[in-house]
């Protein structure tokens, strides 16, 4: 059996990487559309969110733990990305977020009593959140994800991005091999590079 030529390798890589990424491409393409068209009624999520608020009481020993957020989350059986932590002498507040579920916890540090507010999105809201859920904060760029699942999802997004870059570059190589049959490709590629360049370097 002969080793595959560069052309064959590139072609097979393009096909199979594209197929592997297919559902991810659709997931992110459609969620991108949803994010850009917040006014689409069929995909509205904010108005349909479900909110609940319950009183809670956590064991006082959880509050003296070096990492009380984790102990409280364990006690309340919630998991997700911890954000917006605020601690004063009297109270502890934090938000736990996973795609489609936002939980705000507020605890009185002297008594251990507090509240848990939960907001749940519908399927459209969950889908939108998947697009932006990377555990990063615009206000604090040095912040890293603190939930293992967020880290996995973030590296998956990286992998998809690298996969798409490879798919693009391989498409250029594949077209170059058949450029004589598809001469319009020169104009199309030059035109699209021009349009993309206009948007990127418009300043």
């Amino acid at each position: 059996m002969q080793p595959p030529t560069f052309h064959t390798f590139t072609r097979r890589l393009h096909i199979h990487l594209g197929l592997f990424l297919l559902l991810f491409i659709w997931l992110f393409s459609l969620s991108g559309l949803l994010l850009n068209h917040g006014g689409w009624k069929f995909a509205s999520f904010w108005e349909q969110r479900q909110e609940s608020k319950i009183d809670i009481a956590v064991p006082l020993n959880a509050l003296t733990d070096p990492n009380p957020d984790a102990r409280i989350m364990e006690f309340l059986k919630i998991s997700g990305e911890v954000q917006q932590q605020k601690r004063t002498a009297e109270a502890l507040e934090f938000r736990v977020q996973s795609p489609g579920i936002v939980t705000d916890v507020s605890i009185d540090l002297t008594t251990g009593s507090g509240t848990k507010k939960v907001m749940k999105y519908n399927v459209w809201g969950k889908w939108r959140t998947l697009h932006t859920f990377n555990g990063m904060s615009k206000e604090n760029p040095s912040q890293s994800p603190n939930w293992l699942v967020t880290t996995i999802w973030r590296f998956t997004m990286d992998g998809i991005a690298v996969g798409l870059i490879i798919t693009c570059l391989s498409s250029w190589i594949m077209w170059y091999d058949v450029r004589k049959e598809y001469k319009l490709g020169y104009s199309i590629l030059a035109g699209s590079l021009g349009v993309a360049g206009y948007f990127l370097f418009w300043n």
Partner: protein
Amino acid sequence: MKKYYSLVRALHLYFGLFISPFVLIFSISVLVLNHTAYFNRLRPGEDGQPIQKHLAGFQPQPSDSLTAKSILRSLDLSGEIDWISKTDTTFSFPVNKPGLIHWISFNTKTGIASVTRRDEGMLKGTTYLHMMPGQHNARMRGNSVFMKAWRVATDFFVYFVLFVSASGVFLWYFLRPERKLGIYSLGFGLAFLIVLLMLLF
């Protein structure tokens, strides 16, 4: 169905070539968005010195958006106004272009505008494009010709991506030698996605 193969192949190739620079922009921006701290170290933003200019005879306009645009014209600047903040004496707003932000603060009493320029570089420029027009400030968004054009471009980009990916599946289906491995590729992708969704939800 096979009679359409040549046509679909040509369309897949041409549409694919057309969207490829945009795919690169969106893909690179994902890496920048997910590793902001690293890219900030690689290419820190450069802040310019604030410049002050007296806008003689400036008149407020009927709306905040028009007032901001009028200030921009007086300063000979252009871009997408991100949001507007007002107090009794100041009228402030950032104006964005990919990788470039101008912070403008106009004192309505003195008529002096202060402009601070921040150059964030091309890589951050890709993240700006990625997040625009986006879900926030929907009423404000699209106040520049650039953003109106980009809004249309992103929509077309998505529709082309959907066409190119679907036509790719069509073309693969007719490649008998690749069919078995292709089913595995699709299956692995599906299984990986299901596992991730189970973890996330």
